[in-house]
């Protein structure tokens, strides 16, 4: 049941993203300062396993992010939302584990993030703009964790808080190159048992906290 849900949810989200991407630009043309962007990015140390257990010496997981963003500008204010899908580029390894009660060996986490930021634009002549905002993000994750020789599926969700700092560089009248730094602080509740017997409770949580760097192109429908 959990496996089916973990497969269906990302597919549904991907389908929703595709619908939004193709439908919003046409309706956005009626509004003045609405941009639709596509970006790639990276998130290093997904899961923060050394923070989860200080007895772990880890090879951190690095994920690639593909996403779509929507930015609405209203005078000096902006609202920035979107969808980010993070795929593992390299899985996480626990190289040394000095905690025999929690025998985690490997992990691989994929997640979808739905951020929403509100902030202020700082235009720089006609070159582009800096912007700085704060907000929330909701995460849905699936993945696998190997512990004690067995591999189990994991799924979790979390709501987090953070900020975005970015800059846009004007390429043409309607397109801009953008680079963003996002930091979100978010952790799920305990969702999986990795404790050695006799403990049977769920103890492992997914930590989505981290810095994300994004690079993309935004089209402004004027």
């Amino acid at each position, binding site marked *: 049941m959990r496996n089916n849900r973990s497969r269906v949810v990302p597919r549904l989200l991907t389908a929703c993203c595709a619908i939004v991407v193709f439908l919003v630009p046409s309706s956005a043309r009626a509004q003045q300062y609405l941009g639709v962007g596509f970006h790639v990015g990276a998130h290093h140390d997904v899961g923060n396993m050394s923070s989860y257990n200080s007895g772990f010496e880890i090879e951190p997981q690095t994920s690639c992010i593909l996403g779509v963003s929507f930015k609405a500008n209203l005078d000096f204010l902006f609202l920035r939302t979107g969808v980010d899908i993070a795929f593992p580029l390299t899985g996480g390894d626990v190289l040394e584990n000095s905690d025999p009660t929690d025998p985690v060996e490997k992990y691989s986490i994929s997640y979808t993030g739905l951020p929403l930021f509100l902030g202020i634009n700082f235009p720089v002549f006609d070159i582009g703009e800096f912007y700085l905002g704060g907000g929330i993000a909701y995460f849905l994750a699936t993945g696998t964790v190997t512990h004690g020789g067995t591999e189990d599926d994991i799924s979790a969700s979390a709501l987090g808080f953070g900020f975005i*700092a970015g800059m846009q560089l004007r390429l043409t009248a309607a397109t801009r190159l953008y680079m963003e730094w996002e930091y*979100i602080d978010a952790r799920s509740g305990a969702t999986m048992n990795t404790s050695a017997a006799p403990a049977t409770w769920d103890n492992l949580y997914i930590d989505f906290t981290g810095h994300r760097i994004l690079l993309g192109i935004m089209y402004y429908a004027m």
Partner: protein
Amino acid sequence: MPCNKAIIMRTALLVILAVAAGPLHAASFSLGAQAGFVPSLGGNLHSSTHETIGVYNGIDGINKSLDGYDTSTINRLLGASGGIVLKATFYDYFLVRLGGNFTMDVRGGSGTTLYDTPAPGFTPELLDCTYSMYVIDAPLTAGLAVPFWKDVRIAFSCGAAFAYGNYKNSLRPESGGDVKGKFRGYGFPLVLLVEGDYFLNAKVSITASLAYYRGSTDIRKDRYRTDGDTDFARIDFTGYRFSMGASRHFYSR
């Protein structure tokens, strides 16, 4: 001799005024108010009592769940902050900034989890947990400000803050008893700060700022004396702080 001392004092005063007169003449000042939020106020809020129930990373690791037990996730604290900001900009590019902020938790920090009682074998029991914290801080930073025409000014500065924190926790097992911790203390965390001003006109700007604090108090002893437990913890000021607000600018020239 008193006469010489007076002459030295007057001369020193004149020198200070002469040196300061240049920058002050070329200075602009602003007074602003900001409000914002602090994710993970107090970090993981770890204390030594957590280790007695097998938890070594504070609020993060305390969460456990098991079928048949009614648990709820205990999240890190989200702080809401408000404060005032005084800024002096010299020769258009050099910034000195003094702030005063009050931050308190508004979300997270309470829920029910499980712990393994000292009885033999695996004997989980429900544990109600509550965490709260507030911080009063005054960051003093200096740095550079880059104006873009008269519309925008972006500043980067660094320095340190005086920060006073008050942190409380309570771990209450279902079987009774209430282990509490109460800690107070101050520290001087390092501060990095990026701030932008968007000028609505020559006198008023809208601001957004992002600050990173790094530092904590030394290890503080629990101030509760009646719960039979002596706890130890640091009050951690490390973390990001995002704020938005408005400033009123006063020009000396």
